[in-house]
Every structure is written in structure tokens, then in C-alpha cells.
């Protein structure tokens, strides 16, 4: 999913749960900022592909795979909040509806999957989800105004 859709989903969650302060920062950190690994992969992309636009590059890392629950759960227990867990799970659910290859438990397992809803085109899923999230965000904001 694009970062814009992740922002919409996280904003909806923050609004719905009425989060403030540290919890809002954690929500955006684990709902959106985990995508920072794409930036970390940029040097690899430049070395392998160059400056041309080539679709399908493996941009993912274990920072946004289910294996990350192994460190996010202890972190939540230490911080005494489930916000990172919840927003990271939402991020994952969205990413796993896009049909590129993923390695959910790497480096512990080499299982490769494409996630779910693979029969529906990615652009259709993204467009529907994005529209629903925009409407839900506006509706929630309007209701609480």
C-alpha cells in the first residue's frame, strides 16, 4: 500500500481511539513510519537498478513483516500500551493485501507468500480502501466536530 493510504488508516485509528500525545506518536510510528525501511533499501535499488523506474523491486524488510511482532510485543509490554501492536497489525493487514512477494518470518523461515486477495488487482484494492478511509475519516471528524 502507498504511504498515503497508511496515513489515512492510522489517522482514522487515532481519531477513533481518541489518542493523544505519546500514543499518537506511537500510532504514526508503527502505522506509517515503519515504511522507513524502503528508504534503507534505496542504496540497494540504486546499485542494482540505477535511476530508472523499475516496478516490483523487493523493497520490504523484516521491519514490516510479522516477524517484527517478536520485538514489538516486548516493547508494548515495557511501555504498557498496545498501540504499537494494533497499528502495526493494521499496517501489515494492508500490505498483505498487495500481491507482491513477502517473507513473513525471515530470517527464521524462508516461506514466501503473496498475501491474500491476490485475485483482485492491486490498484482496485488500493482505490477502494483509500476511498473508504477518506470517507470514514471525514465522517468521524464531522461527527466529533
Amino acid at each position, binding site marked *: 500500500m502507498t504511504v498515503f493510504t497508511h496515513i489515512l488508516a492510522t489517522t482514522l485509528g487515532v481519531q477513533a481511539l481518541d489518542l493523544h500525545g505519546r500514543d499518537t506518536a506511537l500510532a504514526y510510528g508503527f502505522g506509517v513510519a515503519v515504511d522507513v525501511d524502503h528508504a534503507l*533499501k534505496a542504496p*540497494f535499488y540504486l546499485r542494482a537498478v540505477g535511476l530508472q523506474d523499475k516496478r516490483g523491486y523487493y523493497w520490504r524488510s523484516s*521491519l514490516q513483516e510479522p516477524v517484527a511482532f*517478536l520485538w514489538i510485543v*516486548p516493547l508494548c509490554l515495557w511501555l504498557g500500551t498496545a498501540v504499537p501492536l494494533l497499528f502495526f497489525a493494521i499496517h501489515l493487514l494492508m500490505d498483505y493485501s498487495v500481491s*507482491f512477494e*513477502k517473507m513473513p518470518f525471515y*530470517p527464521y523461515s524462508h*516461506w*514466501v507468500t503473496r498475501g491474500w486477495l491476490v485475485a483482485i488487482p492491486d490498484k482496485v484494492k488500493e482505490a477502494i480502501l483509500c476511498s473508504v478511509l477518506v470517507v470514514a475519516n471525514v465522517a468521524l471528524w464531522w461527527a466529533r466536530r
Partner: protein
Amino acid sequence: MKRLADWLAGPLARLMHERFGLSPTQLTWGAFWLSGAAAVAIAAHHTAAGLLLMALGQALDGLDGTVARAYGLGSEAGHRLDTLLDRASETLIFLAFGAAGLVPLGHALLAVAAVLLLTTVCDRSGFDPGVKRVALYFGAWIPYPTLFALIFGVNLAAYVIGLLLIDFQFQGRMDRLGGDLDTVASRAVALEHAERGGAPALDPLTSPPQLQTTEAQSHRVFTAEARRTQ
């Protein structure tokens, strides 16, 4: 660094091995029992005595590697035992701090979890900052809850960094493999499994049949894709 440590510990290692006839494995176990005694002392509120026993245990733990290297007794099994007993020692000592009420027991358990997580990847990533029980020697100056927060935070962060370093290694492998980017992960996995002589772990529902390959087949896919993209 290891050479310097071996040179410094050499006379003591010779004493342990040649005079007392102790093997690296016996030294590893000796270090563990000293750490166990340290944990008992700490849990009984004799923190200073516990830290002294812990220091003796760590000194002995350092000697096992020196003896193994100096006398050619190193083995993979010895390394595994050393790591296992090191983690067991840390678990006992951390829980002892919890039992003594010096830190919340939950925080001691989470520090153990962070150290164990890091242990699962540090051999492959080559990254371990070494902030474990050694941090506890600073208890005279820094409150123990702060030290446990440090141990937890550093080891958890090191675990995340370790995961990323291993990812980057695999990314390098995928980049070298090249070909169709949409299937590069499954082909790299298939290749790695073929090298190890195992079966590839692919999703049978979503992976195209040609991806469940041997090394030769994987190269064929790559070559065909490379021709197509040229």
C-alpha cells in the same frame, strides 16, 4: 581484540588447563555454576557478593575460549554450549534482581527476552553491542531499574538492527540473482535451499510452479528473464 585477550589471559589459561587439567567445557560449566551462586546471593540481598561471584564467573567464562583457541580444542558444540550457558546465567542473574525487589520482575523478564531475541540473530548478523549483565556492575552509580531499561532497550534495538543486517545480506543475494523482480524473493529462497540441500518453502497457492525449483531450474528462470528484459 581476541588475540589481545588471549595474550593477557594466556598464563591463567595455561594454569587452568596444564596445571589443573580443566577443559574448555569444564570451564564453561564452572562459569555457569559461579553465575548460579551469584544469582542466589543477589536474590538473598547480598548484592555486592553476588556481583563479585558474577565477575569471577565472567572471568572463567572468558578463559574457556582462550583455552579452546590456545590448545586447538574449539568446536561448534563448545560454542553452542558456551552461548546456551551464558544466556542461562544471565536469565538466573536478571531474575535474581527481580526476586530481590531491585527491579520489577516483569522488567527483568523483558530484559531476558530482549537478550534471547538478540542471541537468535547475532551470529548471522555479526552485531552484538555486548550490553548484558556487564551493565549491572554500574549499579553503584546508576539505579538498577535504569540499567535494566538500558539492557532491554539496547538489546531490543540491536535485535532490530541485526534483523535488518540479515535482510540486507539477503537483498544483496536477490540483487545478484536479478531477472524478474516480481519473483526474485522466491527464486533466491529456492537457490538458497538448493545450496543447503533442502526443499524450498514456497506458498503452493500463490507461487507459480516454475518457482518451486532446483538451483539449475532457478538459473534457467533467471536466464530467460534476463533475455526478456534485454
